[in-house]
């Protein structure tokens, strides 16, 4: 289990709300909901998707199958099975240097936040969307994610605590710089 408070590396207060960066495995996080970067075919696949299946059980993929597909920039929510989280928001972010990376990433983050609000979720964790396998540049990702989330938290809504969950130093640097650098 990950003690979130213990692992907080950077925190930005936005009114009474918080945007925090923590280090850990997002699929093992004790959090109300977390975001998974899914492919258009709505299959969990390997990586975090494999961990979700192994730890959470088959019910998550079954529920995803009822959605059929997740177009780029859109998001759907499912239960989290046996995971510590209650919900998973599956969002299809930009992949493999496709056109309009920044725009697609912005839409994906916004969609995840919108779905979270519709579901009444107060606490949501994001991975750095697309920055590993999917080749989204880290600086671009940090800028878009921090800007979109900060703007959303500043504009009201029910979300109170948003986490960005990082694993490696290559992620920590750009996200720290962006979070500490102001809006």
């Amino acid at each position: 289990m990950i003690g979130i408070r213990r692992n907080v590396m950077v925190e930005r207060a936005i009114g009474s709300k918080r945007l925090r960066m923590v280090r850990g495995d997002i699929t093992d996080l004790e959090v109300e909901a977390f975001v998974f970067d899914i492919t258009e075919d709505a299959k969990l696949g390997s990586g975090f998707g494999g961990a979700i299946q192994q730890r959470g059980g088959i019910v998550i993929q079954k529920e995803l199958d009822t959605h059929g597909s997740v177009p780029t920039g859109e998001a759907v929510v499912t239960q989290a099975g046996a995971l510590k989280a209650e919900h998973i928001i599956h969002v299809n972010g930009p992949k493999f240097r496709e056109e309009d990376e920044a725009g697609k990433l912005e839409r994906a983050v916004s969609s995840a936040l919108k779905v979270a609000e519709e579901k009444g979720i107060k606490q949501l964790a994001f991975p750095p969307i697309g920055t590993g396998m999917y080749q989204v540049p880290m600086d671009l990702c940090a800028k878009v994610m921090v800007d979109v989330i900060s703007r959303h938290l500043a504009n009201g809504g029910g979300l109170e605590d948003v986490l960005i969950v990082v694993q490696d130093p290559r992620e920590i640097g750009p996200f720290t710089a962006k979070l500490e650098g102001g809006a």
Partner: protein
Amino acid sequence: MSKPAKTHKIKMMEEQLARKLNRQVVGSLVGCVHCGMCNECCHYVLSHPDDPKMTPSYKADQVRKLFKANHDWTGSVFPWWVGADKAPLTDDDLDKLKDIAFGTCTNCRRCTINCPMGVDTATLNRIMRGLLTHVGVMPEGVRVVSKDQWELGNQMGVLKEDYLDTLEWMSEELEEDLGHGEAAIPVDKPGARVMYAINPREVKYDPRTIKEAALIFWAAGEDWTMPSEGWDNTNFGLFSGDDGLGGASAKREYDKARELGVDKIVISECGHGYRSTRCEGVNWSGDAQAFPMESSVITMLNYIKEGKIVVDPTKNPKRVTFHDSCNNARSCGFYEEPRELLRLVTTDFQEMYPNRAENFCCTGGGGAMSMSEYTPRRLKSAQIKANQIRETGAEIVVTSCHNCVDGLSDLIKHYKLGCEVKQLVDLVADALVLEECYVMKSRPVAVAAVASEEPAAAARPVPVAAPAAAAPLAGRKVLVVDDEEDIRTFLVTVFEDAGAEVEQAADGNECLAKARTFKPDLISLDLSMPGKSGVDAFVELRRTEETQEIPVCVVTGHPEFRQVIYDRPVPPPEGYLNKPVDEDKLVSYVAHIIEHREAKAN
């Protein structure tokens, strides 16, 4: 007819190529004179002599065309002469390039070291792979494995809790073998001298190598540890051409070693793991090499030379030969030490020819084991390796690489060579004379310090055989699935003797039906069966709610099992054993899988 416009992917690849160009790469791009000397170096050419598309120069020309079209003056002046007019333009072209870069080359570098012009064709092929993965064009297995390594920190999707459980399991087995718990595997021990990094294949499918290494470390009196994170010495970035993945994976090892404050990283016997961690990772990650890194082969050899462990070669009397891993031998110049060690722990060593840097690839290198769509071509190209092995008359092929273990195992089955594959850690562990090793010889002093009332000799633990568990599978239900009746009967007998209630099925459909009605605690599943194959049955078991939680131990001897491990349409099987299977290993393995599942459920 006018040319089609470049697609976005092609433009992205061209941008990425520009980032890869340095003096060495450009030298290789412009230096080829197409003399053909590389042809007879390549196992794909030798096994497909009538196919010019198998030649190394043809493969390298694919990236050369992109270079000529965008960066070299000859491409502007004579595009028809240098192939610049044939550079890829559409996404359909990329599928053809994928087949060439991933399906016809293992990046073994045999052509590279034999090129009179110094052209590094393997590097060019890896660059092409990197350009393709940059825009998402790659075999499914490469995609699956890369994502695992990016996100879970190891290329087989092993969860942290499963890794730690395996270490604990191996510690328990060592305790049973030795009669005491002193050889338990230390995890995250700060300030240890050695951090041992392994291949996830060892956790998932061959944990005995971890146990053997732990026994050797203990016998040598080593101050060692295994890390809870940053433990994967392998690196799929080497195979996929993704330097970002290469750097991130290597840095996880380096950072963990720094955090623990160890003196050095010892890398288990994995060819590409050694090359990636020791040689390439430092460059990919931009991390200064702050501490020594060595292969466990060197570590074991030094233990013998320093008298820390004592070995008896007569314990390994069968004829052995040695297969040089391409990454160890050709890329790292590491081939005399394994031979020196092999001669110390065996009595009948027969070289295979050619050898060392000129050895032929096992055909499983370059990530080929993860690309199931190319399995038939891979096995056909293995003919030359099969001939090499056959001519040695060896009963055991020894290699210091996990990829080679899998590649050799497949070709040995395919060409019916009738030998087995081992690693040096297996042979060293088998040859150990524990009573003479450092840990036992030093014991009287250590024991006397804490228990002076008892004679030291009496306190010396003597290796004892573990008391055989009467019925390790008592109360368990096992479903045996295999189309061959004699194998089914053998497996049923083994499981029943171990106390299990057993039912059997002869094909995939029967397996699915009995899985629902019998509700076994574990399914022992063959994959190669007529009718509904084991692979299809396995996927359906995983996708069916009432059977998805049943652990599956694959028991097969056929290469198609790679598909469920690497393409991974569903979570992978809990266990894998190669046929012919050892009875004790089977029972112990299966009992552990069931216990682990119960522990997780609770």
